[in-house]
């Protein structure tokens, strides 16, 4: 992995924290789809630079929680506070505020198929931030180099492996200079041999101090890279603590049985 191109974590003064030092606060987050209660009062506070891995059985609302954070699917109730500003219940103003500060990477990559890797990375800064083509291009090349895609910048997604596509997707999210990054099972759709190259990029990002919320089944990654591990089940946070505690010495029955199942394999 190259380290050219400087830090991707914004160091400018615009990055603010709440009085309690948190960059992101989720309070009493609730969300239902029809009768199905998916989030049932989630509480979670994340400090600047913290890497939080979220574990939990399938269907426990992990993706829904991430999608609430950037208001892709807004919570029914509860408050989300980003950098000291409440973003819930603010309409489009909240949307713009959060989407420009929170980047997201998806399980299915979701690269734009008609655009090259570089165009994928430059599209949003050009259209949303109105930056010049040259500036976006330079920044895009920098970011693609950082994720090890320097030699594939002009390839279309269908010519890239899953691991390569996912690294481009990470660069694409970073191009908006996010203060927080959300990762939703970003290695789950990858062939096993491609998982490491993506996790390496994420580890590097974590080392640089990016605030990250990572939904993952990679216990190894959680153990090494996370400052905190959160176990979710039934729409609530069941257990929350340092990896050594949650992974090696879980207090709750539900966490124990889940880890038992995951670690068996």
């Amino acid at each position, binding site marked *: 992995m190259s380290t050219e191109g400087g830090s991707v974590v914004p160091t400018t003064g615009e990055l603010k924290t709440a009085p309690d030092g948190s960059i992101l606060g989720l309070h009493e987050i609730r969300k239902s789809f029809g009768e199905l209660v998916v989030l049932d009062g989630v509480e979670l506070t994340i400090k600047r630079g913290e890497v939080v891995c979220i574990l939990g059985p399938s269907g426990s609302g992990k993706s829904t929680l991430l999608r609430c954070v*950037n208001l*892709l699917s807004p919570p029914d109730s509860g408050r989300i506070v980003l950098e000291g500003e409440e973003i819930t219940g603010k309409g489009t103003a909240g949307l*713009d505020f959060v*989407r*420009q500060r929170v*980047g*997201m990477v*998806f399980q*299915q990559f*979701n*690269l*734009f*198929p*008609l655009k090259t890797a570089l165009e994928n990375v430059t*599209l*949003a800064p050009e*259209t*949303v*931030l109105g930056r010049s083509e040259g500036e976006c291009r330079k920044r895009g090349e920098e970011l693609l180099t950082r994720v090890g895609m320097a030699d594939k910048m002009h390839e279309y997604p*269908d010519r890239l492996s899953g691991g390569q596509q996912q690294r481009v*997707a990470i660069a*694409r*999210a970073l191009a*908006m200079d996010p203060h927080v990054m959300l990762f939703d099972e970003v290695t789950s759709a990858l062939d096993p041999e491609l998982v490491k190259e993506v996790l390496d990029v994420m580890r590097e990002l974590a080392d640089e101090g990016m605030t990250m919320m990572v939904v993952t089944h990679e216990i190894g990654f959680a153990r090494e890279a996370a400052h905190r591990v959160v176990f979710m089940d039934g729409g609530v946070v069941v257990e929350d603590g340092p990896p050594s505690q949650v992974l090696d010495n879980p207090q709750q029955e539900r966490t124990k049985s889940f880890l038992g199942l995951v670690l068996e394999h």
Partner: protein
Amino acid sequence: MEFIREYYFDFNVMSDYMSPILDGFWLTLKLSILGGIFSLIWGLVLAVLRQLPGKPLAPVRWLTIGYIDVFRGIPLLIVLLLVSGGLSTLAAPIGGDVLPDFIGKPTWFGETSPFWYGVISLTITYGAYMAEVYRAGIESVPGGQMEAARSLGMSHSQSMRHVIVPQAVRRVIPPLLNDFIALMKDTSLVSILGAAEVVYVGRQIQSDIFNGSGLVMGAILFLIVTIPLARLVDYMIGRQQARYERGIA
């Protein structure tokens, strides 16, 4: 047998009337191309209106759906008669002279009013058909594309414009071409208003000399355009199929 040859394939008739038949076909082409272009644009507008997000815009969506249902469900011939009758009447004293003549009885770019009534009616009707094709195309773009675009801070319309519509349009080129073929054939209905397109000319010949060869000549001219188009559609669908099977696009 002899009758068939003489009535349908009299090459003397065809060559004697070649010039008016070709003039007629030229008008057919102009109707098709203008009607086709306007339908493509109008259809896309309708499809996007139909796809607008949010509660406050629900009335726009319902109106658009209503429009599409109505004009897909009634014969083009009725639309032609209502458009020509309505516009010309509104520009006449009997209709209260509501419309100025240059709108009610348009003769833009030296073409006749029936020609423009035809273009307008084709656009109204085929816009509705094409809107449905675009919609299918927009809906066939995986939801993750819109989510990815929105998560990057792009607005709904920026996402549509830069991400969704370009993908949708590629997928819908073959079905749109099919609609274009249908539209081209339907230009023949404009003859009822007196636009001297190829079928109109063929019917004149038929009633003047009791011979159908002019109409057959017209049919052949249609086929010269429509068969290659149909082959092109097949080719493009085959190529897309191959791309899907390779797991992309």
